[in-house]
């Protein structure tokens, strides 16, 4: 949320849609090359390309330099790949580089879906390369990119391990058959809490229901996620509705419930990744947060799905339009769908692996994790979690407005 200034500037520039006239204006003013480079718009645009049979516009492909230029640029979320805690290196990534000779520039520069989109939107709309060969975005944002033609179709001939994808991931509403995207990791929107603080406040060190979360004894000690889908999904399920299929009225009811808890001071803050620090310092006792984060906090903290249900989301790898190392990107996707490699990543990040066979491979890495419900959830756990209903653009904006208004924006 904070490092937004450059993105906002980019967004301002991006809203100037009549780029051609601006370019003429600059030429008329006789302003030199540097300014032109700032303002120039690419001639061929991904969004200009004609639509394909499936209805989604297909993105323009650039000349693939993969064979001559052994490079790859990947944008992912922080702390989302295996890291050797002693050396700070990334073992699985280093092995890929050694095996293939491809130099991977791995950037942890996705902190928030909307923020990342704001940062690259201008180039995408003007049909320019965004300097990344893989981006990793959550379902709904991935859907937006696919719908707008900002990503390239995967060449599955380069990805033999594609068949290792757990079948339930294959047919998602935003990308039927996974033509454009491959899941990286999934996770839950769930409860997290400080055990000793919770038992001091309400006499139990297990948080099971949203009613407990809204117990007045926890007033001012609660944090919920600024990601609308996770917070609202859990509230919808608590009210007895299905977060995968709900009506406007049901959503409004959940918004009212949230507004009440914000206005009476029960909810202290609405945060992105920040809530982890607030848990560590003891400023908040219980949160609606993300499952993987809780494990990094240690044994003093608990994590559980609400008994009424949690949310389930997936982050997806995609190749942006005009990315110039498409084949390299497909090769690394293939590499991470090798069960042994997938297990190695999951053992570190403790999110759900989408790769069939990773659970068996985990036995060699850390047998204690084989039955970990947060990495390899069984059907009972999955039955108690919901994928948020796919929204149209207009719905998304309408729901976002209601949500942001409830949280003071």
């Amino acid at each position, binding site marked *: 949320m*904070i490092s937004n200034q450059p993105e906002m500037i980019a967004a301002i520039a991006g*809203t100037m*849609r009549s780029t051609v006239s601006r370019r003429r204006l600059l030429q008329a003013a006789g302003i030199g090359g540097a300014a032109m480079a700032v303002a120039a718009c690419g001639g061929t645009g991904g969004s200009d390309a004609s639509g394909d049979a499936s209805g989604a516009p297909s993105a323009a492909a650039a000349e693939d330099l993969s064979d001559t230029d052994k490079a790859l640029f990947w944008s992912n979320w922080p702390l989302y790949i295996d890291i050797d805690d002693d050396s700070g290196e990334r073992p699985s990534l280093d092995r890929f580089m050694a095996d293939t000779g491809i130099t991977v520039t791995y950037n942890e520069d996705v902190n928030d879906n909307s923020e990342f989109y*704001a940062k690259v939107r201008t180039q995408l709309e003007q049909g320019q390369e965004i300097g990344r060969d893989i981006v990793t975005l959550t379902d709904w944002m991935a859907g937006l990119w696919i719908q707008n033609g900002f990503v390239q179709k995967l060449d599955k001939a380069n990805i033999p391990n594609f068949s290792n994808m757990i079948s339930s991931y294959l047919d998602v509403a935003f990308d039927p058959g996974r033509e454009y995207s491959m899941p990286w990791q999934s996770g839950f929107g769930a409860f997290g809490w400080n055990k000793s603080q919770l038992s001091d406040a309400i006499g139990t060190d297990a948080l099971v229901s949203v009613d407990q979360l809204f117990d007045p004894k926890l007033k*001012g000690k609660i944090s919920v996620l600024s990601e609308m889908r996770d917070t609202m999904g859990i509230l919808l399920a608590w009210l007895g509705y299905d977060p995968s299929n709900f009506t406007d009225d049901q959503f409004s009811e959940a918004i009212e419930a949230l507004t009440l808890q914000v206005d009476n001071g029960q909810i202290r803050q609405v945060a992105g990744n920040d809530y982890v620090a607030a848990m560590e310092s003891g400023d908040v006792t219980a949160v609606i947060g993300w499952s993987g984060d809780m494990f990094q906090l240690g044994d003093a903290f608990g994590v559980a799905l609400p008994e009424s249900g949690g949310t389930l989301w997936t982050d997806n790898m995609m190749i942006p339009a005009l990315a110039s190392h498409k084949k390299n990107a497909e090769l690394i996707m293939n590499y991470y769908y090798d069960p042994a490699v997938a297990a190695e990543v999951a053992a570190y990040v403790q999110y759900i692996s989408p790769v069939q066979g990773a659970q068996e491979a985990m036995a060699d890495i850390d047998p204690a994790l084989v039955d970990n419900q947060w990495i390899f959830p069984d059907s009972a756990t999955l039955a108690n979690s919901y994928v948020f209903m796919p929204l149209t653009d207009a719905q998304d*904006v309408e729901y976002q407005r209601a949500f*942001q208004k409830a949280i*003071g924006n």
Partner: protein
Amino acid sequence: MVVGVAAKGGTSIAPGAQRRSRTGYFLLLPGMAWLGIFFAIPIATLFMTSLQAPVEGASGQYAPAFQVSNYADAIIEYWPQFLRSFLYAGIATLLALVIAYPLAYFIAVKAGRWRTLMLVLVIAPSFASFLLRTYAWRTILADESPVTTFLNALHVLPDDRILNTSIAVIAGLTYNFLPFMVLPLYAALERLDPRLIEASNDLYANPITTFRKVTWPLSLPGVVAGTLLTFIPAAGDYINAELLGSTQDRMIGNAIQTNFIDFRDYPIASALSFMLMAAILVLVFAYIRRAGTEDLV
């Protein structure tokens, strides 16, 4: 400046005057180009964006239009955040003045050989990132921190906490912009002629009268510059409200950010930015007129 000098010497035009005045304009070019590219064009873009209308059926896309209602919509929706921004920035500016004046006075008049060191100390925190310093305040004001524990023992905190309250936001604003208050005040007080104070004492003014009649009026340019340099960025700030505030403390900067990033509603965000600029300009003009120091600033 060059232009001004050349024009003043103009009763008897020297042979080189014409050329010199052109040199003046020439020297202005880089500055004007800079202003044009990085200020005028973006402002014009922003203004045009603020009047755009949404494209039917394509969310997040806007076409050029003349939709003045964007401004009305924005003010109806966000007037509480506007008021709050000016209130918080106003309180922070006042607090900064109260804290900075004695400090600047001490550095300028009493510090002697420590003067440079003290000035460096005032500026030194700015060497660390603004963001990091604000994060540090979260630790300082955390619920279990000594500060909060101490104040809670005295039962002076309404919510039994500081972090995520308006107190924290105002404290953060005051802290972050304090150097902008200290430095202009120091510059004004440092030029203060000590003989004027002596004269005032000789004429039987007590210290309070001396301050009211001599020191304060002479430091006014510093006060005006300092309050403006503090108030303007504080009113537009969103980081303090984001990191130190609660959901009840959102300022106009947060509203602009939410509209840009989450709603992808660029016209409303631009309209808000424009109104913030306009409101600040009006306030500044009113203030300068009242202070009667146009020629001093």
